[in-house]
């Protein structure tokens, strides 16, 4: 029988770091900023699906709970092609995008022009290089999605996100929906090497909770639609991190995509957890922690 006291003693930071390290051990090279420029086209297409359904759903959840308003100044950590910049800027006072990849920045400009959005600015850096002290308390919301897995020092980066907001923080994390395509493709290309884990939710909730935060959650479902060529580009970049991209690997990816979607667009259903909290509010019994 498991000792229930072990629950409160779980070191979630250690779990996070172990997961990060396990990924690193099977990588033949680290992600580079240029990888994200290569991903700009497919990422943009994904985020634009159904008129920015993903960003719109996140905005609706936060708006309903008073986390954002027309007066909000919002900082997005790792904007990619403008994941939240476009849907949020239409409704808030100002969006600031932290985004280092030139390809992604070009995409933000292109998407913003198309949406006739002008109330945004870009900090062309990785988040870790941003001097958070300089921006202390300047935003009403700091938000990020599909980025935190890159931070081994997760609570340090969360604290920096908290430092720059005078209002709320929000992390939008992927939730596993049991899709088998990714696991099957990994097995075909990588054999028995365990696939890398990108645990975001509920691990991030546990981390925040154990460090005294009071997070709330809305689960959102959304669709991503991409051309086969964009999906191929995405998988090519992804697998180049873990193995040499040979003609055989490329053919395996193309075959899998064709079997999945034929010659039409690849439509995927995803689920995410919108996790937000007020950094000034702490669980009472954990006062003084972090």
């Amino acid at each position, binding site marked *: *029988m*498991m*000792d*229930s*006291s*072990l*629950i*409160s003693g*779980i070191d979630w930071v250690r*779990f996070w770091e*172990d*997961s990060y*390290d*396990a990924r690193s051990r099977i990588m033949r090279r680290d992600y580079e900023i240029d990888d994200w420029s290569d991903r700009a086209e497919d990422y943009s297409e994904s985020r634009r699906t159904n008129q920015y359904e993903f960003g719109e759903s996140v905005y609706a959840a936060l708006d*309903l709970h008073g986390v954002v308003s027309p007066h909000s100044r919002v900082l997005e950590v790792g904007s990619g092609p403008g994941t939240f910049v476009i849907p949020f800027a239409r409704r808030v006072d100002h969006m600031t995008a932290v985004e280092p990849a030139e390809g992604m920045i070009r995409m933000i400009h292109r998407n913003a022009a198309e949406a006739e959005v002008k109330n945004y600015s870009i900090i062309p850096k990785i988040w870790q290089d941003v001097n958070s002290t300089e921006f202390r308390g300047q935003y009403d919301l700091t938000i990020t999605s599909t980025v935190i897995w890159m931070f081994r020092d997760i609570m340090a980066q969360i604290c920096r996100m908290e430092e720059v907001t005078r209002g709320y923080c929000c992390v939008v994390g992927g*939730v596993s929906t*049991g899709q088998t395509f990714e696991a099957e493709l990994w097995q075909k290309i990588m054999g028995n090497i365990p696939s890398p*884990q990108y*645990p975001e*939710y*509920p*691990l991030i*909730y*546990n981390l925040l*909770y154990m460090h005294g935060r*009071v*997070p*709330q*959650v*809305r*689960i959102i479902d959304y669709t991503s639609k991409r051309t086969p060529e964009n999906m191929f580009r995405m998988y090519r970049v992804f697998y180049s991190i873990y193995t040499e991209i040979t003609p055989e690997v490329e053919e395996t990816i193309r075959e899998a995509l064709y079997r999945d979607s034929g010659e039409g667009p690849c439509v995927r259903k995803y*689920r995410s*957890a919108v996790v937000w909290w007020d950094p000034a509010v702490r*669980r*009472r*019994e954990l006062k003084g922690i972090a």
Partner: protein
Amino acid sequence: MTIQIDWETAWAAGIDEMNRLSTTGYWNRRAEDYSDMVLASDCNHGRNILDLFEREGLLQKEWHVLDIASGPGAVTVPFAERVCRVTAVEPAERMAAALMSYAQSRGLSNIEVIPQTWQEVDVAAYAKNYDLVICCHALWQFPDILPQIRRMEAVSRGYCCLAHGFEAPSDTSKLMETLGIDEGGFDQFITILNLLNDAGVNPNVDVVDYTLTRSVSSAVASVQNLVEKYRPLDSNDSAIIQEYMQSHTMKGVYQVNGRMGVLWWKVA
């Protein structure tokens, strides 16, 4: 590295003692002081759950709600004031009587009671019968928590909602410490959240503040009953409880602030 925690086993171990001590007989003894608290608080915590569903734009007048372990009606009554019908599952006779008395005093005739424990209820007879199934502050009743949650889903055609203490009121914790009562540090909220996510149920999470108000005599009785769950009450305990309540009472009313985690999801 994948996190491998058997949350169901952790839950069963964590609630073991509370489940063993909190019998139907215990809740019959608690009926009076608990009812006093619910009435004096105007069902504050239940009303806040109602507000949550209203704010989300989900609450419908036509709803039929099932409230599992209703007690004297902290959840049942606020919902019955706003929806078509509420069915309360409540095995403790005195609690059920208190609920019906409270309902009558509020002019409510749309409440019915199933006088059984949830485990005894034949879910097949109520398949997809309710729009919302709620279990508030009572999950400790279920060592086999996941099968019981699946049974809740089986009778819901809309939503399920589990509400639980997010953190103990700090004042109450101090009193318990003085009395030498260790209710255990098992964190039910975070365990149930992880358990649900592991099971593929991804609930929304709201953290809701509430205020509980009660008379001094009700507050004293509740703590005395709580002590007697663990050991016989002696004169020293009574003195400590009386003194504590007197010093924490304003104008004859004892008030504590609490926070509950509300987990809710749409049933597939």
